[in-house]
């Protein structure tokens, strides 16, 4: 019998000092580190977007030179995707999956630690490129050659940072799969798993299948630049478009890697505050799985204008459209869950409903861009910027923030300040729409993305967009304040926290003991909450 187990039979034994965090093998501590790291990166990436919006406030060049502007656009995306969204999702998974399935911890705790600690080091590599000769990556987060190969000394560090982050993601994903498949409490059958757990297993499979392909792609970039290979050089028999295929084979599944955890969170929140079980649990599971499966066959909708054979354009158009079906199933189920529920609108529920509405806006514009002939107009304009920011900001970030409000009382043992939470929601919702909705208009009118200057007819909307942007950025400071306030004290939370909450995580004390479920609980239909 291990010492750790012996110890917590007697008292809740916590390691202390910096070692608690550096050497941690505890899923809650690691989850906390993931979440804090994600929040920091959210503000680092956010600061970069503020530079972008300041520059675009007026036509002409004001504050930064075009090269630096392009670095801002590129690194903003990389930081947000790999530094904020993915770690936030993994952080929630770390905290919640073991206590949702009745496991003592993650299956492979040491590897769990490494997947977290890689992140700050990987971002040190990436951000250090700002201080190198040639500056930070500026060719877009999609890293298309030949443009990206013109980067200076920062180039190898861009590639290595991607490798490093890939290692972290793959280890995290393997851990989640091993945990869910092997560590469920007796009676916690697959069809009794909370939907958040389901969306995370599916995400984990996506990660394992997609991240190595990206690693391979950037490795080929590296050898093209330094070892004379010709993968992406037509003069040597290669093809620059091939990189786009490889990148998007990763890239499209990646967008579902980002969004599925958010879907999982709102699938927990909506039933809780509707005081009804989730409508169509089984169809939810199958819909999520089919979205994930289909996501591997739609990648070239990012490349409609690149010059593909007609058969390819058509195939990828129809495949893209078909994803709307399982997505529709999910949206329908969430709405049906609320139908005739006795609903209340605490902050997590507000954010979840926000996801429902505003993700759908992004989904619809996605559908529009999925139609090959019309995408020729939308491609590389602000329309696509509007699309993916709708799915990402109110679709994913709102989901994650909803999850934070939802579980914060469980994590800290204190209720957060409901008034401030609601204020945060309304400020964010209003500003996010001021920020992103007008991008549809200027996009359709032809304003290209990734350019620091624009022609004067776009000036008014850009003004408004920038104001929305600053307002959104400032509103997020409120989140930090609510979290700090909640950690420091507040009304004590009960174990169940929310009246309508069901599931193992709500049977534990708030906050849960350092080691929970050292002996597995028994799960029956009555205690499972699907």
């Amino acid at each position: 019998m291990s010492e750790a187990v012996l110890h917590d039979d007697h008292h809740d034994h916590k390691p202390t000092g910096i070692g608690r965090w550096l050497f941690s093998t505890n899923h809650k501590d690691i989850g906390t580190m993931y979440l804090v790291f994600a929040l920091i990166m959210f503000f680092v990436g956010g600061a970069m977007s503020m530079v972008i919006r300041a520059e675009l406030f007026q036509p002409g060049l004001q504050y930064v030179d075009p090269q630096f502007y392009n670095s801002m656009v590129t690194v903003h995306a990389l930081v947000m995707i790999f530094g904020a969204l993915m770690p936030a999702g993994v952080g929630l998974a770390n905290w919640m999956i073991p206590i949702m399935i009745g496991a003592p911890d993650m299956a492979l705790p040491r590897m769990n630690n490494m997947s977290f600690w890689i992140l700050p080091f990987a971002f040190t590599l990436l951000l250090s490129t700002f201080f190198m000769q040639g500056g930070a990556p500026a060719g877009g987060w999609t890293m298309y050659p030949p443009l990206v190969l013109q980067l200076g000394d920062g180039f190898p560090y861009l590639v290595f940072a991607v490798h490093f982050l890939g290692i972290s993601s793959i280890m995290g994903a393997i851990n989640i799969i091993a945990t869910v498949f092997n560590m469920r409490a007796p009676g916690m059958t697959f069809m009794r798993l909370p939907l958040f757990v389901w969306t995370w297993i599916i995400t984990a499979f996506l990660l394992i299948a997609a991240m190595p392909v990206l690693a391979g792609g950037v490795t080929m970039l590296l050898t093209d630049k330094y070892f004379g290979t010709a993968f992406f050089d037509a003069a040597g028999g290669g093809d620059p478009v091939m990189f786009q295929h490889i990148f998007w084979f990763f890239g499209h599944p990646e967008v579902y890697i980002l969004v599925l955890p958010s879907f999982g969170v709102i699938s927990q929140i909506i039933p809780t505050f509707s005081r009804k079980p989730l409508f169509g649990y089984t169809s939810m599971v199958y819909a999520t799985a089919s979205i994930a499966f289909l996501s591997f066959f739609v990648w070239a909708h990012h490349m409609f204008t690149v010059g593909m054979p007609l058969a390819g354009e058509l195939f990828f158009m129809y495949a893209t459209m078909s994803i709307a079906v399982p997505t529709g199933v999910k949206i329908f189920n969430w709405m049906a869950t609320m139908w005739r529920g006795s609903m209340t609108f605490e902050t997590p529920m507000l954010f979840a409903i926000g996801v429902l509405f505003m993700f759908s806006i992004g989904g619809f514009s996605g559908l529009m861009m999925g139609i090959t002939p019309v995408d020729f107009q939308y491609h590389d304009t602000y329309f696509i910027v509007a699309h993916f920011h709708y799915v990402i900001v109110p679709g994913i970030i709102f989901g994650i923030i909803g999850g934070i409000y939802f579980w914060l009382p469980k994590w800290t043992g204190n209720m957060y300040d409901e008034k401030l939470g609601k204020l945060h929601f309304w400020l964010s919702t209003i500003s996010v729409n001021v920020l992103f909705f007008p991008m549809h208009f200027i996009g359709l009118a032809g304003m290209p993305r990734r350019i620091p200057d624009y022609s004067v007819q776009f000036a008014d909307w850009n003004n408004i967009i920038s104001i929305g942007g600053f307002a959104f950025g400032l509103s997020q400071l409120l989140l930090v304040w609510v979290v700090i306030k909640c950690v420091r004290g507040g009304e004590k939370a009960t174990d169940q926290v929310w009246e309508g909450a069901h599931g193992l995580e709500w049977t534990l004390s708030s906050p849960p003991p350092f080691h929970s479920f050292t002996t597995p609980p028994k799960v029956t239909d009555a205690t499972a909450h699907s």
Partner: protein
Amino acid sequence: MSDSNDTYFIPEPSRWPIVGTIALFVAFIGGGMVLNGYINNGQYVLGIGVAAIIYLFYGWFKDVIDESIAGKYNEQVDISFRWGMAWFIFSEVMFFAAFFGALFYTRVLSIPWLGLEENVSNQFLWPDFQAVWPLLTTPDMTIAGVESKYMAIKEVIPAWGLPAWNTAILLASGATVTFAHWALKKGNRAALCWWLAATVLLGFIFVYLQATEYGHAYHELDLTMKSGVYGSTFFMLTGFHGFHVTMGATMLAVILIRSMKGHFSDHNHFAFEAVAWYWHFVDVVWLGLFVFVYWI
């Protein structure tokens, strides 16, 4: 032992993960320095990083082996390791898939496109380009008076010479590792060790033959990384494969040492199986290489 059967082993806080992270970090910094031309300092940083990575593997696995021998792992922990290894191998499969994808894409799509007469690149840039595979002459070599960035290949390596021998060697090693497994299950340690030793030997012979083949390609055939897309796909695929064989053979050697020390029993030998799975995976990748890189 009986106790550990109902509690899952959660390791105490460990320093290995952070050591590993820093080791990789240092190696990446060094690698970047070397690539950027700061070779003299870079190679030391890279060397320190790689040494630290080796130290990490040694230290981390030593902890795991000690825990295993102390009987801390119950059946359930064993299954976690199995899930972990299986999906790790799958991620490796997807890594190779990127390079196989590049090979198929160039062979089936982009090179034929470059050769199409109605194609603009053909009309305006390289009208004399011939779309053939193996691609000995890259498009930019077809213009008289312009020096190509790439090196024309004299000849490629035929499948039915050394590569066929290497196929036989790897397939044989797949068989010997299975015989070793059978011996282990029967509790016959001597046979286990001999079959394992044979497998390790075959693995290193493969690597040696691959290295001589590379020498031949570079010195006599002008088949190099710089030989256009044929050389690129050839060396990327065979290079990463060769690296994986080296890793696999090294792991097998460790397993051999552990077998000689009697670490494994007929029902408790996950480490052996994990390495054997890995070995079969390298084997299968090679079959793909043999067929699509060398043969057809």
